[in-house]
């Protein structure tokens, strides 16, 4: 699948933004006034910025408002509705903390649950697609949610929680890569079954339907990065998990420096991992092109 930068940034940053808002809703950290404003500003900037960047990849933006209508059937619509409801629920809680020096705990808890549901619905947009075996897996929502909670914990300064979450996420990321590889290799669909001609013999495409590029090939038959996959996985694993854990441990007495290093490293690794999530995904239509 084509790794569109807008969608990569949207999923990584809005995920972390909602993750931060979720931690803040649970009172971790518990603070008021200007400090609370800074935390909420970062959370909202990431969540809203991510959502706006996802609008940039729409080909017909004027109809974006209509995407709130089909929440009964469409995960993409559910994500839009939940994102707006979440941001509107968290807002009064944030106002209470920043300006009124009060904490409405129940409202905070509801907001945190909604943050989780929003990111869950984002992950389901990909998980639901039977056409992409690598995504059509229980690992997809688990990974999206863990990236959300881990990134949020790093930004919320929850050093102990972040360390354990980084370890868990690192293990699950490796398992998810292996699961995706297995699903791609074991995919029962090949050119023989897809065309129904396999019972005659070996099928080969000798002429494509078109001589140039087209939307299908650009969007769904992206193959540029496959040869660098292993190197990129290593880079992602080292920067997203190993270095942040080491940074948090090395600067245990100065959580700010350790935190900043960990966050920067984790962001590089998370974006690389999300880029691979798209670039490695093989869509069923590639089969018809013999790719």
């Amino acid at each position, binding site marked *: 699948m084509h790794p569109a930068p807008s969608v990569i940034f949207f999923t990584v940053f809005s995920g972390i933004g909602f993750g931060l808002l979720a931690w803040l809703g649970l009172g971790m950290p518990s603070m008021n006034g200007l400090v609370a404003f800074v935390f909420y500003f970062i959370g909202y900037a990431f969540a809203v910025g991510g959502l706006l960047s996802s609008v940039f990849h729409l*080909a017909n*933006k004027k109809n974006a408002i209509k995407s709130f209508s089909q929440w*009964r059937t*469409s995960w993409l619509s559910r994500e839009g509705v939940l994102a707006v409801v979440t941001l509107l629920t968290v807002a009064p809680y944030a106002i209470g903390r920043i300006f009124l020096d009060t904490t409405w705990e129940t409202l905070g808890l509801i907001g945190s649950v909604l943050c989780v549901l929003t990111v869950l619905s984002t992950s389901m*947009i990909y998980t639901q697609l039977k056409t992409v075996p690598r995504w059509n897996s229980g690992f997809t929502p688990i990974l999206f949610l863990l990236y959300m909670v881990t990134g949020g914990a790093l930004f919320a300064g929850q050093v102990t929680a972040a360390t354990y979450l980084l370890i868990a996420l690192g293990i699950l990321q490796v398992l998810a890569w292996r699961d995706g590889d297995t699903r791609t290799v074991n995919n029962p*669909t090949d050119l023989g079954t897809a065309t129904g001609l396999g019972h*005659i013999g070996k099928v080969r495409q*000798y002429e494509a*339907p078109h001589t140039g590029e087209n939307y299908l090939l650009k969007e769904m038959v992206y193959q540029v990065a496959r040869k660098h996959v292993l190197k990129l996985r290593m880079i992602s694993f080292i920067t997203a998990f190993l270095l942040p854990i080491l940074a948090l441990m090395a600067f245990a007495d100065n959580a700010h420096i350790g935190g900043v290093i960990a966050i920067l490293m984790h962001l590089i690794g998370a974006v690389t991992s999300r880029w691979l999530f798209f670039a490695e995904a093989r*869509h069923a239509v590639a089969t018809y092109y013999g790719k």
Partner: protein
Amino acid sequence: MTALPQKTDKKLGLVIDLDTCVGCHGCVTSCKGWNTQNYGAPLSDKDAYGDPSGTFLNRVHSYEVQPDNGGAAQTIHFPKSCLHCEDAPCVTVCPTGASYKREEDGIVLVNENDCMGCGLCAWACPYGARELDQIAGVMKKCTLCVDRIYNENLPEEDRIPACVRTCPAGARHFGDLGDPNSDVSKLVAERGGMDLMPELGTKPVNKYLPPRPKDTLDCSQSLEPVATEATGFLGWLDKALEKL
């Protein structure tokens, strides 16, 4: 709502004969023509005189099959367009309600006034039947020529999809696949019509008729060699050269 109808009154669709298709791309051209000049945003082309790319609702792959038993290889032309699936995954993923499946005849359509061009329906379709028009910014797909088949301004023989009307080989058939007594249903039953990628559970309405088995090349029938020993001048030359 982009929910699928429980059942449709008819299941209008195409039956494509892989035995007969000659790969002329006439259906591709007539489809592009009709759907550019009629309903909805035209099917655009970009950089037509440089590195061209464009939107098509029907595309023909060409495959070669080498039989396992050593028989002669077959070339099979494979037209592919929207299969108007009963369980169409492209419809339910649509966030705006632009994609829908008609209850009266099962045709899957896009309401271009609602489409925001997110492309998720194209991701959900395993067949590559939906293409986002790069100029109009809306999703385009086969309409089964909904503006022809019910169009009383057209002569009756033209009230079929443009691809079917134009096919010079008679490889494309249009009808109600929900009616077991229709011509297309009988054809599918007789020729063993198949679904594409049935494992994905989309329940396509369009059916493909498999190519009939071809003859195998029989080498035992070839002539015996008539002369193994050269005689006369050539025989002398042969012997003379051997001695050198």
